[in-house]
């Protein structure tokens, strides 16, 4: 019965723990809806036929006989209809709470939407683009945000969806029943590449998932990036289509960051970016802070708020002067440098970068790409695990 209805209604497979329950309500609601519309139309048509003028003219008794339609019938129907709607609401709301409130102890994965791809960051430090790896049989909670405009994370097979809103964190959870692959679609219109902003959830058995975290991609057919580069982007293509990191270099050069900061670990007017991400920084006013996205962004927008001990307060604010996507790109650049050792006098891996912002050479690719740089074409990191 379930299978039959699902097929008739073209519903996708029920891959999450809540999907079949939601579909039950769906069947009920749609059947009643269809039946109701048909019933009303049939009754209407019947009246149209029965009380047609030619018939009434021939048989005058038909007219007026049932003139005063008993209002209580209508009242009865309306009240029971209301009861039914209320029942749908009660069930629907109850289910909604289940869909929305993640169970205790769900595993958290951070999701960032941007034009036009999904990025996933796992608690263990790995990250991936377009392909989300999750363990089957374990609740997973996604914490979503967006870099640019609103996106919406949708997995039809799971019957879940949640907007990713810039400047906010939203959450969504699901538990996949079995290992397998499921399509991710973006359902909030986000520009030229909206319909290409697709991805895939790959549910792995717990062992495979552990292995994946350690850097072993499981064997095909389960694995492999499903991401196709946007075919049609035209003039609205984001500028960093090739690589966030490369874009970061360009912006850093253009905006003059590189006049003070270095990428290769040499000392200069400002702290070097090499090895900075994730390290603890001593502050001028005492205390320390771990360098993360927030700290980097804050340092760009309000450089004097948390001054790095030992440096002059000479950095200008970039607030309002730098596009958010470029801010993100610089953050990505700094992140990508976290493994570069701080060697006074060392050579920059980005040797091709000049303050004029020339294109980076192929060497940069080697550093950033890693084993799975097939997706590195568009992404700023490999699809595989990326460990410091």
């Amino acid at each position, binding site marked *: 019965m379930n299978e039959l209805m699902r097929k008739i209604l073209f519903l996708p497979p029920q891959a999450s723990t809540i999907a079949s329950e939601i579909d039950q309500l769906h069947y009920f609601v749609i059947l009643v809806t269809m039946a109701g519309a048909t019933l009303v139309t049939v009754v209407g048509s019947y009246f149209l036929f029965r009380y047609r003028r030619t018939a009434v003219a021939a048989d005058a008794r038909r007219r007026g006989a049932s003139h005063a339609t008993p209002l209580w019938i209508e009242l009865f129907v309306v009240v029971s209809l209301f009861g039914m709607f209320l029942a749908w609401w009660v069930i629907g*709301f109850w289910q909604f709470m289940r869909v929305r409130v993640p169970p205790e102890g769900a595993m958290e994965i951070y999701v960032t939407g941007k034009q036009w791809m999904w990025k996933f960051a796992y608690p263990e430090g790995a990250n991936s683009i377009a392909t989300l790896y999750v363990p089957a049989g374990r609740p997973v909670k996604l914490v979503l945000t967006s870099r640019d405009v609103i996106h919406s994370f949708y997995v039809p097979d799971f019957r879940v969806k949640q907007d990713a809103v810039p400047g906010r964190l939203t959450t969504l959870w699901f538990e996949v029943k079995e290992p397998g692959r499921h399509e991710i679609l973006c359902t909030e219109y986000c*520009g030229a590449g*909206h319909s290409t902003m697709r991805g895939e959830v790959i549910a792995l058995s717990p062992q495979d998932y552990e292995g994946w975290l350690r850097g072993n991609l499981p064997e095909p057919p389960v694995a492999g990036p499903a991401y196709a580069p946007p075919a049609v982007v035209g003039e609205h293509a984001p500028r960093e289509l090739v690589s966030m990191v490369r874009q970061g270099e360009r912006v850093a050069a253009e905006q003059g960051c590189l006049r003070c900061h270095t990428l290769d670990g040499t000392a200069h007017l400002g702290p070097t970016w090499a090895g900075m991400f994730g390290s603890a920084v001593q502050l001028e006013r005492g205390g320390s802070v771990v360098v993360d996205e927030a700290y980097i962004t804050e340092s760009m927008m309000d450089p004097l708020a948390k001054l790095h001990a030992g440096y002059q307060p000479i950095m200008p604010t970039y607030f309002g002067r730098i596009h958010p996507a470029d801010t993100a790109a610089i953050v990505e650049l700094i992140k990508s440098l976290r493994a570069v050792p701080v060697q006074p006098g060392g050579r920059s891996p980005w040797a091709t970068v000049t303050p004029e912002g020339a294109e980076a050479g192929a060497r940069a690719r080697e550093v950033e790409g890693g084993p799975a740089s097939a997706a590195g074409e568009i992404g700023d990191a490999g699809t595989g695990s990326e460990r410091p």
Partner: protein
Amino acid sequence: MSEATIDADLPAVDPRGAGAEEPDYLRAETSVRSWLLTKDHKRIAIMFYASVIVFLMLGGLFALILRTELLTPEKTIIDANTYNQMFTLHGVTMVWLFMIPAIPGAFGNFVLPLMLGAKDLAFPRINLASYYVYALSAIIMLTAMLAGGADTGWTFYVPYSSTSPTAVSWMGVGIFVNGVSSIMTALNFIVTTHTLRAKGLSWHRMPLFIWSIYGTSVIILFATPVLGMSLTLVALDHSFGLGIFDPRYGGDPVLFQHLFWFYSHPAVYIMMLPAFGVISEVVCSFSHNPPASYRAIAYSSLGIAFVGFFTWGHHMFVAGMSEFDAGIFGALSMFVAIFSAIKVFTWVATLRGGSISFATPMLYFLWFLFLFVFGGMTGVAVATQSLDVHWHDTYFVVAHFHFIMVGGTLTSFLAAAHYWFPKMFGKLYDERVGLLTSVAVFIGFVFTFLPQFLLGNAGMPRRYYSYPEQYQWLNVLSTGGAWLLGAGLLLTLANLVIALKWGRQAGPNPWGSRSFEWITASPPSKHNFESTPLVERSAYEYDLPEEVARARVPAR
């Protein structure tokens, strides 16, 4: 003219208006100037009528381009950017240039004073101005379209809209100006209804169409300013980077959605209530029966107008709103459905015991019934939160609102176009062709939108230029339906245009209706009535023989 002024003070001699010497409003003056500067509500109505038909065709053309593009999963005829501009244009044109002004602008303007026994609307100059403001808004929107268009969708969600390089600000200005026009019209209708009712025409004697136009006007008055302001804020954000909705500067994109839907949910009733009014008139006139419950229909309009203001959150279940709020909005949405259900049952009950003549408007009523009930019930379905999580922003929602808006508003627009055709032009259209084209419209419609429900179930998101292959054949079906629908509409138009020239003379009251707009000649004279009627019955007294009914509204 002088004759008319003298006549106006004399009691009507011939109640049938048969010997009306005064030329009708179409022939009273014929210069272009007399049209462009007219203060006659009937001529202004005709200008609105012609304009909304042009925009219906334009919006329809955009729709056909969209549907044709979707024949194949990848590029078919246009590129992604063009596609995105096209669906924005389609939405904007259909919503603001067709759907909202269509019934009130064309038919409301024409028949409302006639139904009230008035010589015109309360403010004829404002009425004329409202047409030109509408035309101006259309020009601004079309200019914006040529100047690079907008690619945000008709919903203008920020921060996409505030950062899109396209002409979003101009679109916003166009919609703002458009809102000014609706407000002018709405104000005029409200004041007219309050002050210009004929002697004896109490509120509960009025035709139901007036109740629904009145309800619509009230919604317009309360909701439209909010839309105007929120789009102004978007335009400011877009032009000057104020950051009111932009998280980069501490703004809140979700706030925009609240503001937008605070207007746009009521706006769906701005489109729907006039349709309800038309349906009430059509049902009663053709079944020769008073409404099964006058009060049920009249008050449920007001109920919808009221509750419609408290359901906007159902567009935002997955936008990052609290579960509690979502629950409240879900429950409130059900009430709208109840009011709508009351209306539907009352119409059906009205048929019972009638003496029904099955003319084209009645066939449109039948389509309306199916499409509106199904569309409305799927409204309840999408208001059921757990289901909406899956459906939101997929083709299911697209199908839902097209069933309601195209199924509800367009069918009643067409019903009105046929029903009041003799009133407006004094001619009869070809009934058989009318029935036939109506069937074509319905079949085309069902083929266009029924597959879209299934596409939505299968998970196809809306506003997709390219799509995964598994969705193709349903899309092909839908595109085929769209072409049929387009053809049906063109044939309908052709039938009416042909009747304009070659149709038979209609006589003042071809349908034998008891509603007051049929009291005067068809087409009416420039001043509607030579003497203000004195109303001594309600608009639906079908148990009275026609002559008696006529005599109880002495006027011509």
